[in-house]
């Protein structure tokens, strides 16, 4: 193998996170809550409870002259800004880089049609990142087990931005929420919002987000029901008041 192809291979290997057995939080970004992350294992779609869904959302970026790499650079840099209200993302200082943790605070609705109200503090690990895509992997306790890939690509002369998730609900509580409490619709609307926000940043408005859903595996994995022990929503409800109180006290001293 030539030295340049060997160097190329080494460079592409760096697109992947280094192997870890459990997440380790070295620094918490300003404003973020470090909860449901430290010591957690990462979860692939194989370790979740609910049916395995592959959902693909994409939007055409008509008339945008920026390259896919340039668009992705903006997406990574401004990732938190493109989220709907109530969804707070806090990348680490290093940003969207392989192995880094993105802290997340969001709220989920206790009932369909109600405004979101239940806090969920957790995060995701950047599993993979290159110049036109990045993939995040969820930890134990996160509502979903699996991966979300964000990508920008050219196809037949048009540029597209895409979010693709391959996930299962992590435990029976979250599966119930996704299936009966509007969770799936809320999640789908969130990713559609993100793509429209990204498009609007590049002055593309009025485009519809195209969405496809494929149920890769309809089976419930009852052996993974024990994941509920790490349920981030339940633990957030228990620990969040203490975290917030601690913040207030630290702010005053």
């Amino acid at each position, binding site marked *: 193998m030539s030295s340049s192809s060997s160097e190329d291979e080494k460079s*592409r290997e760096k697109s992947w996170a280094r192997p870890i057995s459990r997440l380790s939080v070295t620094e918490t970004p300003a404003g973020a809550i470090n909860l449901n992350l430290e010591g957690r294992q990462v979860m*692939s779609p*194989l370790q979740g409870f609910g049916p395995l869904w592959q959902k693909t959302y994409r939007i055409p970026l008509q008339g945008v002259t920026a390259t896919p790499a340039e668009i992705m650079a903006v997406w990574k840099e401004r990732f938190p800004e493109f989220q709907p209200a109530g969804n707070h993302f806090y990348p680490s200082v290093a940003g969207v880089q392989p192995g880094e943790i993105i802290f997340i605070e969001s709220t989920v609705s206790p009932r369909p049609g109600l405004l979101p109200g239940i806090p969920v503090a957790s995060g995701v690990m950047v599993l993979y990142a290159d110049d036109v895509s990045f993939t995040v992997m969820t930890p134990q306790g996160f509502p979903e087990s699996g991966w979300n890939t964000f990508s920008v690509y050219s196809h037949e002369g048009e540029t597209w931005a895409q979010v693709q998730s391959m996930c299962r609900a992590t435990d029976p509580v979250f599966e119930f929420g996704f299936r009966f409490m509007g969770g799936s619709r809320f999640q789908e609307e969130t990713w559609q919002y993100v793509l429209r926000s990204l498009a609007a940043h590049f002055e593309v408005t009025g485009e519809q987000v195209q969405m496809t859903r494929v149920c890769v595996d309809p089976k419930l994995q009852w052996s993974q029901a024990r994941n509920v022990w790490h349920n981030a929503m339940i633990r957030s409800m228990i620990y969040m008041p203490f975290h917030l109180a601690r913040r207030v006290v630290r702010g005053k001293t």
Partner: protein
Amino acid sequence: MSSAKEVIMNVRKVDETTSIIDIHGEVTGYAENALMDAYTQASNQKTRNIILNFSDLVYMNSSGIGLLVTLLIRAQRQKQLLLAYGLSEHYKEIFELTRLNEAIGIYDSEAESLVAAG
């Protein structure tokens, strides 16, 4: 030699119950049709083991790993075992990181994978 977005998959039938898919090139999202077509060729009613040969893998990204999950589900649905050999140390680590190694047996050689297939 495969181009950047090209992957070639060859299917070898070892016996009635075991098939090997030789992967040449890059496994990315573009490889979906090739991989699924190869699986269709490799699998029949008597197939119990599908072995993936990664010896000639040039590169795999996260979309490629996602394809392996889909392949695994298809195999499991047919009560087939999915095994792999020929992964570099880097990609063995990736299989550990993504926890695919918990469902796909990883071996150092074709011979070892065939022994494991039984």
